[in-house]
């Protein structure tokens, strides 16, 4: 149940998408977000969609999984669609009843908005699906490195991020275990009103916090035992090097971007 959370999950692989340098992949993901917003015509959207589909297919991540990542925002998408449908003004009225008017422009805008959200979520989840958390934080650290000159604690933040990401699955597992143990003692997490449910969480949260503090303590001790002293003068086991895959991926994105802008100019 809790194990089905896909947030921040990584699926190991050897595809070209997996092999793109994490620094580039982060930048490309940001570029993809921009790309989604530059698309303004049906063909532009189609191009973004094809690009996304292409990345998903070569990464060998199952399409089912991508759809699953969209599930949590389903309500949000419906809400956006309905709002756009009702409030967008336009000339071509398709259907109207009392104060509700649905126009062709509104319909199109609702569709575009939903597509945009879907592309954004699917595209950004591709980043976490194909990059291991350590690689991801390594990439972030390298990208923010110039800020270290301004005394910004880049390495410390990246380390905190690594640890936090690493602890997500551990804490989920721990929660699962404690829930099972308390259920075995007759605890009920599912029924009753809000107050009862909040109260039922005490037997779960107390042991969870106790164990989180214990783990943090142990981790700090283990890091000190291995002479951890922060980022200064620290070298990397995996040196990041830009290569052919990164260049190729960049060129593909550039081509798509130019295509979208041109299509937008001609309005198709």
């Amino acid at each position, binding site marked *: 149940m809790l194990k089905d959370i896909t947030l921040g999950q990584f699926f190991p692989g050897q595809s070209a998408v997996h092999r793109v340098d994490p620094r580039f992949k982060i930048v490309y993901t940001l570029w993809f977000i921009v790309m989604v917003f530059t698309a303004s015509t049906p063909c532009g959207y189609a191009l973004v969609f094809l690009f996304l589909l292409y990345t998903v297919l070569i990464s060998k991540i*199952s399409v089912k999984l991508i759809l699953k990542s969209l599930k949590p925002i389903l309500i949000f998408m419906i809400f956006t669609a309905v709002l756009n449908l009702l409030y967008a003004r336009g000339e071509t009225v398709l259907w109207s009843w009392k104060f509700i008017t649905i126009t062709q422009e509104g319909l199109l805008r609702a569709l575009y908005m939903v597509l945009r959200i879907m592309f954004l979520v699917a595209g950004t989840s591709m980043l976490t699906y194909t990059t291991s958390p350590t690689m991801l934080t390594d990439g972030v650290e390298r990208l923010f490195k110039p800020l270290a000159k301004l005394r910004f604690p880049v390495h410390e933040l990246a380390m905190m991020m690594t640890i936090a990401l690493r602890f997500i699955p551990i804490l989920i597992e721990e929660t699962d275990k404690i829930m099972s*143990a*308390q259920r075995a*003692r*007759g605890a009920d997490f599912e029924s009753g009103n809000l107050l009862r449910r909040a109260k039922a969480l005490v037997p779960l949260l107390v042991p969870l916090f*106790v164990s989180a503090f214990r783990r943090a303590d142990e981790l700090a001790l283990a890091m000190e035992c291995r002479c951890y002293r922060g980022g200064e003068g620290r070298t990397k086991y995996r040196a990041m090097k830009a290569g052919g895959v990164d260049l190729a991926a960049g060129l593909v994105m550039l081509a798509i971007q130019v295509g979208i802008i041109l299509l937008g100019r001609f309005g198709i």
Partner: protein
Amino acid sequence: MSVILQCEKLTHIYSPGTPFEFKALDGLDLSVEKGSFTGIIGHTGSGKSTLIKHFNGLLKPTSGRVLLEGKDIWEEPKKIHSVRSRVGLVFQFPEYQIFEETVEKDIAFGPKNMGLDEDGVRRAVEHASEITGISSAMLKKSPFELSGGEKRRVAIAGVIAMSPEVLILDEPAAGLDPKGKDAILDYIGRYHREGGNTVMIVSHSMEDVSRVAERILVLDGGRMTIDGTPKEVFRMGESLKKMGLELPFVPRVLSRLAAMGIDVDTAEYTSEGAARALMSLKQRRDGNA
């Protein structure tokens, strides 16, 4: 004796349909008799923990059935709570589930959830602390002041307080010193004898299990591969080794002796039994000489 707990073609698959799909149990059949003391052995990942989570309905079988006194526990999913008070489950490192301010309150958590009145809860706590040797001074303490072994004792008392007909413990002795181990196995034995309760112990260590269990089941790859008394199981040293399990110390010594051509019964698993086997060997030799 009548059968209390039964599995029929029990199969469980974790995360079906994802790259992490994993078949933890594979068509397992099993029946446990009322009042028996069973040990379940298997190396890490053999499906032990998954199996016991099915016994009180924490996991639902992907296919197959779990029967408690002949009745499918999932027949009425809403009444799964009553199954959980009849089949008590103590997890690995149960001390991490403790949350109350005092030991007494923590032990009372289970009985309270069962809906007992104040008097019933008090009696349940008294009974459980008596079996597990928790003094009344300790009952008033905060569980976080206790030592690891004492915490474990409190956690197990918390499940015993529900007076389950079947008590299942996952690695109850893991990570304890020999003295703590003895104490825990001792009062689990006490709970078994008293009132004819059924007990199951899950472990990867045969040493602990063989000391208390009358019957040993060996799991490997989600299937039950061996089922017998400790003596019968320990005669199969070779196949156990293939499953990544090691014989306890005494049978290991005896089988080494047997390999050296000395005629001893390799199935003895207590030091007393081994002494007897060696003495009878000595007598035979002295007789021949």
